[in-house]
């Protein structure tokens, strides 16, 4: 099993619903976030292009944060989800510094926090909160090892890219372009 998420930049409108849904689902304190939205404008008026991306942890299969965590708090869970065990985390911040995507943040409770792919929802057979809420239905989530999963099929059908591939982290977050 290999969990992955694909986000259609052609449909995302940058509304940040994914951000606030993640906050209310995962009790992320106000002022912090596990996902965020980036807009990139290219060109000059009126020859313009706009790419909108909802970003979060890439759940890399070669994750520097897991490698550098001194306590093993950062680890792989089933399906390749990168997680932090809060009570093992000493808050040293090595993982924060190692992540090329700035996907981690220090939770005010003292541990490092990040996107969990909503593991607790997956265990209940639900989709991640951000995927379930998105009004444009631009996010696809599932198992890349299953060729019939939504995410496998969309990645086969569409052109995509990952972020900062040159960092060699093998990200599992795909942007449909």
């Amino acid at each position: 099993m290999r969990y992955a998420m694909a986000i259609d930049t052609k449909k995302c409108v940058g509304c940040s619903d994914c951000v606030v849904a993640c906050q209310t689902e995962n009790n992320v304190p106000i002022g912090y976030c596990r996902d965020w939205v980036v807009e990139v404008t290219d060109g000059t008026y009126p020859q313009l292009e706009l790419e909108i991306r909802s970003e979060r942890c890439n759940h890399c299969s070669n994750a520097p944060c897991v490698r550098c965590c001194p306590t093993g708090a950062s680890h792989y869970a089933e399906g390749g989800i990168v997680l932090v065990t809060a009570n093992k985390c000493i808050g040293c911040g090595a993982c924060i510094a190692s992540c090329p995507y700035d996907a981690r943040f220090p939770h005010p409770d003292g541990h490092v926090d990040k996107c969990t792919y909503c593991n607790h929802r997956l265990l209940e057979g639900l989709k991640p909160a951000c995927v379930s809420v998105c009004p444009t239905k631009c996010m696809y989530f599932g198992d890349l090892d299953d060729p019939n999963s939504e995410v496998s099929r969309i990645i086969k059908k569409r052109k995509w890219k990952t972020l900062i591939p040159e960092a060699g982290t093998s990200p599992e977050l795909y942007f449909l372009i």
Partner: protein
Amino acid sequence: MATRRDFIKVSAIGVGGLALAGSSYGLLKKVIPAVKGNEKAQKVIPTRTPTYCEICFWKCAAWVHTNDEGKITKIIGHDSDPHCNGRLCPRGTGGVGMYYDDERLKTPLIRTEERGLQVFREATWDEAFEYIAGKMKKIAVEHGPECVALFTHGSGGAYFGHMLKAYGSDNIGAPSFAQCRGPREVAFQSTFGDLVMSPERTDIRDTRCLVLIGSHIGENMHNGQVQEMSDAIDKGATIITVDPRFSTAASKSKYWLPIKPATDIALLLAWIHEIIYNEWYDKKYVEKHTYGFDQLKEHVKDMTPQWAYGITGIDPNVIYETAREMANASPAVIVHPGRHVTWYGDDTQRLRAIAILNALLGSWGRRGGFYFPEKVDVPKFNHPPYPKPKRNWRDAFPGMYNLAEEVIASGICDATIPVPERECAFKGWIVYGTNLIFTLPDQQKTIKAIQNLDLMVAVDTMPMEITGWADVILPECTYLERYDEIRVSPHREPYIALRMPATEPLYNTKPAWWMAKELGKKLGLADFFPFETIEEQLDWQLKQMGTSLDEMKKLGVKKYERAADDLYLDENEPFEFNTNTGKIELFSTAILAEGFDPMPKYTHHEEPPEGFYRLNYGRAPMHTFSRTANNPNLTDLMDENTLWVNPKVAKLWDLKNDQYVKLKNQDGFVSHTSIKVRVTERIRWDSVYMVHGFGHRQPQMKRSYFRGASDADLITRVHVDPIMGGTGMRGNFVTFVTENLEA
């Protein structure tokens, strides 16, 4: 360097992509307390209660989740509701913040100093009602009850409306008409004999071509439409966006027409020209259903793409091509009427041109065009007949605005300022859930009107600018803490939705139904409120609708069958439209009878003087008007607006990204607060743009106080639509003020 905190907000970056220089959090707490494991499956079974969202008018049905302690945790869209299909928009998801905002109004307040100074004392509900009822009785005796008006935006306004009608006034106005969607309703009514309605009857999910004229779906987060536009993109529909700004919708479009502001009618007429003279119109439909085709053909004879090019700056080939795209998709094409359409004062005529274009393409009443919605009615309960008002707001405008089917809110404001030739000026205002200082154009006039009142009551959840002007403030509890009317709204199939409290009201706040009833009693109108509790009333109504309050508490929403299978026009049947001729009127007999052009004409609008730029404004997906600006969850996503400035203009004025400026308009008015510059290619060089709803100046609302600027400060010139009284607000020009920004 971008901080991680900044990423919560949409971070807009220019060419070159994202450069992240490590993390901004160097220092971390060393001591780790035992924390709750965030990856453990939470095994709490939350309870959920139904509601429909009140953060905007779309009214999505939802479930409010509460935890073991009865605390609200999250709000999730109702899967069976066609307004949201299980997905709320960011504002609805962040609706929890409206409840948790600790700067809410908490108890009734009565003014103790001069009006507007915002000095109040806390009062009991009884005192507050006593005060209001005393004034209302006095006004009724001295001037007549017709001199009290209600401004309303939001569900609970219905209860105050009922109370006011019982008292003897039918002056119940919503700024959503003359300050927003009024022109489209009047235009579509005069063309098709029917309204666009809300939610809009646009069949976007099945359309093959969607044309947006300045409508920025995706930034205006009208949930169902955003969802359907996304479906349409999936199905490969062509989107054509006409906007001087490269909006989000423009970025999703096959064609973006970067039009010169205020010239849309010329483009629309050229499209009509192309569709008629290339014989691309739906001939059978036009022949069977429309009136005035020959006059229209003659009327647009010279309005060629070449002609429109000189006015709009849009390449004639693009005009031709986009007209052909629409025709190819016909009848599954939508030239979208938009929503906030009070722009330049000839708005009804612009919307008429849009309606005519739809008629030629045969999209009204067709799949992928406009469907015929249906809703169910909530049974009315018995009460004594309302007294017949002796006069109303229309008497202040003799012979004018006859086609306006709703009350003109700005007209009530105008008619509050006494003039010798008018018999009655308004003496009392009840303002429910609408921040008129930001909503009505020309703040000076609104304030002058308020200063002429004998009574000014504000009902709100937040200490908005308007509540500062009130004599009495009635704090309403949020939609998460109250019952309201049953939601019925027109859709493909009729649905109803229930709102019930998920929790007890915080502080000393109360629901509108209770306030209206208690105030009614004080006014001697108890007979008009036959039910002891709102539950009793709702249950009585729901039982006659084949359900009950108990059942609806479990269901949340309920679907009804359509009375007939008539979502679209039946091609084989005759159809009588509700117009003077019974046809779709390309040539409007109703508008002609009022003394206006029966077919739309292009008129030139004033352009910005040297050194000034047209002030455009719009919406952000995470906020609704000015009412959400203090919501902690939504402020987290966006806590100030920015001023979009083209790089060429920025260079000319030496403006840098993130620099704060104030704006001064053509009449010398300077924005009260300053706004951050966002230098972006996405805006034309002749205009600037900001999201409406920021620049609050209420110190009680700390999260929004002096954050960003308000377009309303600068809209002092209003172009009134002579047909229906709409207030055109896009004819204001601004220049930059970079000195003396504080104060």
